[in-house]
């Protein structure tokens, strides 16, 4: 997987580049807006991590140029302007996700990995599964080892998101965003309580446990 990191702060950039490389990504890094435009036009990336404030060309301008030329590469906007208005502006300009600085690398990684999946052909699946857990999106039923499991609408949503991103780490705010459609950093353990209820239903009576807690980062569904 190929990622372009457009970030002018050397410290932040090297942290992100190093981290992504350690996770097995092929990483290009540019620190200048004009160069970013050139790279975006000449290479194909799976994901672009784009800082908003850049020398020469503003991040949003790059994004708008990309979208205007039909480039639909998923873009994660990175910005110190982590306020609601800026988020909305970034997403309106064609961004796929938004992350406010300062951020935890785990959060960035989780979002980049989720975005990289979007680039691929959106398969119209009706069935999601991991190990002996399977979910039917049409009948909205879940079974584990053939045993039907009753889930509430939210639990179903949670599990669907985890399944679609199986093997990847998803953060609490990503879950809140994807399942509840609200964007803020839940500083309490409200999401944990929902996950623990889901766990009760899909993991308690089965082996091995699928829902993993990733300390300091979030959750991951793994066999």
């Amino acid at each position: 997987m190929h990622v372009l990191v457009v970030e002018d702060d050397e410290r932040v950039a090297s942290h992100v580049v190093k981290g992504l490389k350690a996770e097995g990504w092929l990483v290009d890094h540019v620190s200048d807006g004009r160069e970013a435009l050139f790279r975006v036009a000449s290479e194909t990336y799976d994901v672009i991590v784009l800082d908003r404030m850049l020398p020469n060309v503003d991040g949003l301008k790059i994004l708008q140029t990309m979208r205007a030329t039909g480039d639909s590469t998923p873009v994660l906007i990175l910005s110190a302007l982590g306020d609601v208005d800026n988020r909305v502006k970034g997403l309106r300009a064609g961004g796929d996700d938004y992350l406010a600085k300062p951020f935890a690398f785990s959060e960035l990684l989780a979002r980049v990995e989720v975005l990289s999946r979007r680039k691929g052909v959106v398969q119209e699946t009706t069935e999601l599964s991991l190990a002996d857990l399977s979910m039917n999106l049409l009948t909205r039923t879940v079974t584990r080892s053939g045993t039907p499991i009753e889930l509430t609408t939210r639990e179903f949503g949670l599990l669907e998101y985890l399944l679609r991103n199986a093997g990847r780490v998803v953060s609490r705010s990503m879950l809140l965003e994807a399942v509840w459609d609200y964007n803020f950093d839940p500083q309490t353990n409200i999401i944990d309580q929902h996950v623990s209820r889901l766990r009760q239903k899909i993991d308690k009576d089965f082996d091995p446990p699928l829902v993993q807690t990733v300390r300091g980062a979030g959750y991951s569904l793994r066999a």
Partner: protein
Amino acid sequence: MTWRHPFRSLTLRLTLVYMVLFSASVGLMLGVSYLGGVLRPLQAVESQISRESEALLGVYASQGRDGLIRALNQRVAGHKGRYPYHVLVAPDGAVVAANLYDWPAARGPEWLRYEFGTYATGAEEEHETVVRDLALSGGYRLLVGLDTEDLDEREDLIMEALSWGAGMSLALGVIGGLVMTFAVSQRLESINRAARAVIAGDLSGRVALRGSGDDFDQLAATLNEMLARIEGLVASISRVSDSIAHELRTPLTRLRAELEELAGEEDPADVRARAGAALEEAGRLQSMFEALLRIARLQSGPTPAGTRVDLSALLDDAAELHRPAAEDRGQALSSDVPAGLQVEGDRDLIFQMVSNLLDNGIKFGMEGGWVDLTARSVEGAVVVEVTDDGSGIAEDERERVFERFYRARGAEAAGFGLGLSLVAAAAERHRAELRLEDAKPGLRVVIRFPAA
């Protein structure tokens, strides 16, 4: 204002202007009396002389020299009012008739006005006259005049008054100006002193009021109000930064401890555990900063154009999100929200507000008790209430709990103390009214959104 530059002083300049105006008005008044008391009567005298001299010329033409002398003598004998003067000089220079004591030897201008003295009573008597100097046919010269000593005296009087008046008004102006400048400069100096004290760092400095309620007192009162507001703001800023420093100490100390122990760990599993713990501390710090930044931005940024938010759905979502947390404490989280409530605003922000309030309700409510979320429409406004059955917040703390880092009594160990600050900032941004009430027992938080 200082005495070192008196001519830069506004008050002194004003005084000078007043002084000039005052002198000018004295001059104008005296000028008017000069016109009425001297110039006009002089004109009347001249026209009388004209009339009389024309008559005398007529007499000379018809009766000759001797007739004219008779007429002149009659004029003196029968005069009423001003004393008439005359001089008749023969072509050879001999004085034919005269009751004037002095006149120019040769003819000059036709009209003359001059003074002369008489010694009839032994002492010098001053006289002034206006005279018409005429040439008669046959080489005779006739001077006809009237006494104008009264007008001369009046003129002297007015001139004297003018010089005294001008001098006095200048003197009074200077004295008054200095006194006024001094008085004003004293008032300004007291304001200046207070301002300098504030500049020097003493924010408690205030301008002394004289109690007269005059313009200076009003200015001083306004300045004092401004200073009080500044002092309050500075105090709250320093309180917040004190709190930030204080609040940072604990997590930073813990973070440092984790890292120090991490440096000594050998076992990879222990290293991972320590690193995870350190990351969690860093995450907490980061969350705290994000919350602080968010509050600051909400308080300072411009109000963005909101969108229509389906509040009913939002409140249902919030109740649903928090229900597991309530259930874990054995609490019943009930929500009574009619469908179709709408407000203008920022959906994520309103959700976070309600979420913070529910979180508090669950945290501070009785274990096994209840938390209520209700909403209703009141005269177009939408009122949202979150009520718990905990120990509530004492009345004297209800304002303070909105301050950053302030934790109510009995909640010292819970959270950052930023939740309600964010709720307050978000409410203000939505122009919503935020109120804490005693739910007996427990706390009721009331948010009243303005009519959309």
